[in-house]
């Protein structure tokens, strides 16, 4: 077999490649730095393969169009940055409630408000979990390389279809804008999950039936099935309900369809963790600095390893507890004021020291800063 073609690809374009591989055929968005190249890539590629690209009037319209296209049967996505994500959160809640699959790319920049358009940040990590109001369970994945951005975008679509829920792909400015030499997956190389459609006669279809899997088949509008969707809390037929016996089960469904399968969603990468006494915990661009720092520290004889959270929500409680069981100290590095650090403190036993190295000045954490912190807590 001939060698696969090597390309120098940008993180944002890797999103486009991954999404199209996963079958995405509808993109609606409003350009915003540092995510604009995702829209540019979709505008170029989608018309070539029979897909649709729409630049909407704003981010509210963009996510509304994405949800509409998904209900009409297409795998759909949008890309934005923090200010745009803030505008989208109301309708993302609508997607949670109506159980509509879609993928939202957030290439993070500094905030709050319009903040720092060209500067890196990871300060929307909690927003991806709690952005919209109400009780729900969110899925968010966070690649830290261009190659991973391709595969995690594919996975974001798979998870979205598998659980009928919106999935956020958290990138940061560094990963979105940097370019790396990669080879793209061949057709068939990566798993692609297709939407499950109803097979029963239309008159027997119960759109939100309480089944064992809690995830219902989803017809496209126009296929003959009656599929009522509303943001109001609804019964199994999709009609508005105020009955306590129907309200709680609906909310349980939204949570349990995901929480029963955390193992399927969780993905972590570990480096140098055998016999490690201290572990770095990080994600996105910071994970790259942490792997580098751990490598340098190992060469200097320190028993140090690094864990990258490739998926952040649902938080990988069990896996993190197991991986950190034998270590005395962890250092959480992130580009915010400690959004994941809070989760790590919640999960790890009290006798594990949780140290933090937090940067929110628009620059990436460097291996040297992580090594200095390591030296301080050793």
């Amino acid at each position, binding site marked *: 077999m001939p060698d696969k073609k*090597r*390309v*120098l690809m940008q993180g944002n374009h890797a999103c486009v490649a991954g999404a199209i591989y996963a079958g995405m055929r509808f993109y609606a968005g409003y350009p915003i*730095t540092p995510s604009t190249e995702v829209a540019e890539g979709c505008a170029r590629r989608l018309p070539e393969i029979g897909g649709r690209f729409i630049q909407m009037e704003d981010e509210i319209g963009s996510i509304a169009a994405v949800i509409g296209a998904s209900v009409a049967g297409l795998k759909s996505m949008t890309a934005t940055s923090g200010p745009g994500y803030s505008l989208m959160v109301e309708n993302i809640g609508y997607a949670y409630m109506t159980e509509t699959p879609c993928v939202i790319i957030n290439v993070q920049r500094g905030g709050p408000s319009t903040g720092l*358009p*060209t500067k890196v940040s990871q300060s929307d990590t909690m927003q991806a979990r709690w952005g919209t109001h109400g009780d729900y369970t969110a899925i968010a994945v966070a690649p830290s390389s261009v190659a991973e951005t391709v595969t995690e975008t594919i996975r974001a679509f798979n998870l979205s279809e598998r659980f009928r829920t919106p999935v956020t792909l958290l990138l940061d400015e*560094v990963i979105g*804008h*940097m*370019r*790396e*030499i990669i080879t793209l997956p061949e057709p068939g190389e990566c798993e692609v999950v297709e939407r499950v459609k109803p097979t029963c006669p239309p008159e027997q279809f119960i759109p939100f039936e309480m089944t064992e899997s809690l995830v219902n088949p989803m017809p496209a509008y126009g296929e003959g099935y009656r599929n009522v969707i509303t943001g109001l809390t609804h019964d199994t037929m999709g009609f508005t309900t105020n009955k306590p016996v129907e309200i709680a089960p609906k909310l349980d469904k939204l949570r349990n369809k995901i929480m029963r399968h955390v193992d399927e969603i969780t993905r972590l990468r570990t480096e140098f963790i055998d016999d490690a006494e201290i572990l770095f915990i990080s994600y996105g*661009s910071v994970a*790259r*600095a942490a*792997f*580098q720092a751990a*490598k*340098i*520290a190992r*060469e*200097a*004889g*320190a028993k140090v390893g690094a864990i990258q959270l490739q998926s952040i929500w649902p938080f990988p409680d069990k896996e993190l507890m197991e991986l950190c069981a034998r270590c005395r100290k962890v250092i959480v590095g992130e580009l915010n004021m400690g959004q994941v650090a809070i989760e790590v403190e919640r999960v790890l036993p009290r006798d594990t020291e949780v140290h933090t190295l937090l940067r929110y000045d628009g620059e*990436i954490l*460097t*291996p*040297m800063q992580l*090594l*200095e912190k*390591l*030296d*301080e807590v*050793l």
Partner: protein
Amino acid sequence: MGALLEKIKIPHDRFEMRLSGSGGQGMILAAVIMGEAIGIGGKKNVVQSQSYGPEARGGASKSDVVVSPNEIFYPKAMRLDLLLAMTQESLDSYYPDLKEDGVLIVDDVLVTDFPTDKYYGLPFTRLAREEAGHVMVANVIALAAIAELTGIVDREALTNAVLNRAPRGTADKNKKAIEIGFREAARLKEKKG
């Protein structure tokens, strides 16, 4: 405290370069071309990253290219093996990041104040305007000079990468720019011995 820091060594399996100047001088595009020239035909890993301000023109702009036979963890430069500075401001900002034996290449018309006498100076911007026919190809002249002075990428790979990225109708100007870069750098190398 300090015991670990005394023992650590900066990795030797990386070649790190930074192309820096002012927004609009094409430093990011130059780094992308360099990344493609080294990475696509070869076997090495390449990461190209950048930082820039919100302005389309002006403001500081820099782009890093890291090359390694191994997996590149940290995507940005740590200690520069090569610094290209197209303005005084970029030289002042990034010279401290250059290794002691690192290669410094500057536009010696736009830079007037040198922190060291160990540098290669060429008038990239003037050469582009007066000889190549357009100020916009100063970045391509600089790329060819880097190739000639360091050997980090071979001529053919660089030429292909430049032409692959050149907008329609600019191939001739870009070819000329590459020739000028190789020629001037070779002359400079000879002069310095």
